[in-house]
């Protein structure tokens, strides 16, 4: 498609400091006979240390974008470069390995495994590393300490509060030292105070150099990020930089920046 090539001038593998890049990605579902374009020619790059919030109403394609970024879904057309490789064409097994190696997931409903303890939940991604990561258990304990749960290592998810569960999930998302952390409405199930605790944690991780891509529909949460990408009908509607110094301290008031 030569005309579209012009829109993405840097065809081929992206530069080194770009950890993830999608190029003219479309995703088409066929629902009840007619085709629905969930993503329509979307291109976006994430650099090392990026902190991006993806916003949009339901049906805007933000979930689909996150699924593509998370290697859970393959684009219908276009490329997705992750760690220098085009993963859009990879088979299921390789994609699984890519997820396990380069990505960390944080979900709205925490998604911890109920029969496992805190430390075992943190450990889960390690059991799918090929080759195995050395020093796994110590790493889990360190991360548990980082998220402030070192006293609850043996607890089950049901014995923890929502905020604590999300902390476990964050530790789990870090355990494989991922290139990108993908967070899907990480505060969606939490009260305001806890939400801010969790966001403080994510902020700290970003300051420490982690690349975070987060889907949210809450403006005050989105404004914690450095960039906000707004989607509408499967297209990127706007990309805006957030001025950090303008961030309100309490974070309760939100500034709506129209497209």
């Amino acid at each position: 498609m030569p005309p579209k090539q012009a829109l993405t001038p840097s065809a081929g593998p992206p530069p080194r400091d770009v950890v993830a890049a999608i190029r003219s990605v479309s995703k088409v579902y066929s629902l009840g006979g007619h085709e629905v374009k969930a993503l329509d020619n979307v291109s976006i790059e994430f650099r090392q240390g990026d902190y991006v919030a993806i916003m949009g109403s339901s049906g805007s394609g933000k979930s689909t974008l996150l699924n593509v970024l998370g290697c859970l879904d393959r684009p219908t057309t276009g490329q997705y470069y992750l760690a220098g490789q085009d993963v859009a064409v990879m088979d299921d097994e390789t994609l699984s390995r890519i997820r396990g190696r380069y990505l960390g997931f944080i979900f709205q409903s925490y998604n911890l495994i109920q029969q496992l303890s805190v430390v075992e939940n943190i450990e889960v991604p390690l059991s799918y590393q090929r080759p195995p990561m050395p020093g796994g258990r110590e790493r889990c304990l360190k991360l548990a300490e980082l998220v402030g749960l070192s006293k609850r290592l043996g607890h089950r998810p049901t014995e923890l509060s929502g905020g604590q569960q999300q902390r476990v999930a964050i530790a789990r998302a870090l355990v494989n030292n991922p290139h990108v952390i993908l967070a899907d409405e990480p505060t969606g199930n939490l009260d305001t105070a806890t939400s801010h605790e969790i966001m403080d944690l994510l902020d700290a991780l970003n300051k420490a150099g982690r690349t975070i891509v987060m889907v949210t529909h809450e403006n005050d949460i989105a404004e914690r990020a450095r960039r906000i990408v707004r989607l509408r009908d499967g297209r990127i509607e706007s990309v805006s930089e957030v001025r950090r110094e303008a961030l309100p301290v309490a974070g309760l008031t939100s500034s709506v920046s129209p497209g």
Partner: protein
Amino acid sequence: MKFLQQLRLGFRSLLLHKLRSALAVLGILIGVTAVIWLVAMGEGVSYQAQQQIKDLGATSIIVRSIKPAEESSRSDSNARMGISYGLLREDFERIVTNVPTIGRAVPMREISREVRHREQFIDGMVIACTPDYFGMNRLKIARGRAISEIDMTSYANVVVLAHEAAVKLFPIEDPLGRAVQIGQEFYVIIGVAAERSAAAAIGGSLDARQYDRDVYIPLTTFRVRIGDRVFTSRAGSFQLETVELTQITAVVDDMKEVDSTADIIRVLLQRYHKVVDYAIVVPKELLEQAETMRAMFNVLLLLIAGISLLVGGIGIMNIMLATVTERTREIGIRRALGATKGEIVQQFLWETVVLSGTGGLLGVLFGFLCGPTVNGVRFGVRASLPEVWAALPPNIRNLEPRLAPWSIIAAFAISVGVGIVFGIYPARRAANMDPIEALRHE
């Protein structure tokens, strides 16, 4: 390490639903226990039969007199003469002289008579035999001596008592050297045989045999003191029977010659007996039949076992399908965190193997309880229902289950195999879920 982790994870996940898992385990447990128990019982029965047949001697051929149907008996023209049937001393001579493959042959005559010592008496079985009889039937003499050639040639009034008979007739005194009365005659006790367990009926051709009422006297003595003609009273009427020999036991030197020798004897007897008033029992043939029976029995048992394990397997599959549906979310999480389809299949297969393996192990454990349980039931029945006990055939009363190592290994292996076979479908179903859908699952 990986193996232990998988095993632990399997146990953990199954402990989420203790009752459900326990029921699935129970299904396999029952199957495995059933296999082990049934095989053990079968082996016990066939072992018993084989032992009894072996006791008769694998190289021996037994020819027994049989009373033919009334109208066809030989020389029955004179009713007062009674009937005359069975093996003749001539037959014995003919067999011994004409069949070269026979190493030894022993004639025997038996009759039931009251044996008395003062006020003690038993309904004894008088066995008139030659000295060879003891060796051939593996009868051991506990005290004193067996019947000798001299006893034979001198028509001596001597007797060897079976262990039980000796105990009954001489509860206190030493029987050796004392006399017992058989019919009108007195016999001096020269020996007491060692204890011997009863033999059960074999294939209808040989009656069950208790040895404990036996008293042994020289064949020659029998002929002169008791004679071939015997009065029997049956249903109130007396009958005169003339039988020369009750049984001829021939032992062949070479196992391979047994069948042909039996054929020769059969032909030989056919020529001189118009009526078939004898039966030829070849223990070797019985042994072969018993082997075939055992093989058939085992096939049947394996079939039953297969069905019960199949049912157990279906139970496991049912539970795993429910588990997979319930844990859809977990599957989605694991897939998102890097698990390949293969690893999901492995995880769920491990769970089914843990289920079926646990069932298998417990089943083997219960399998080992077979012997004690049978003994317990036997004791219970004997103590609480003596009439039922008495009515049971000796085969059942004396049944000792024999655990077959192969059945234990096979049952366990099959149970694990069932786990794998019936686990594959649920595990594949788990692995083939779309991770996005799975994560969205409530």
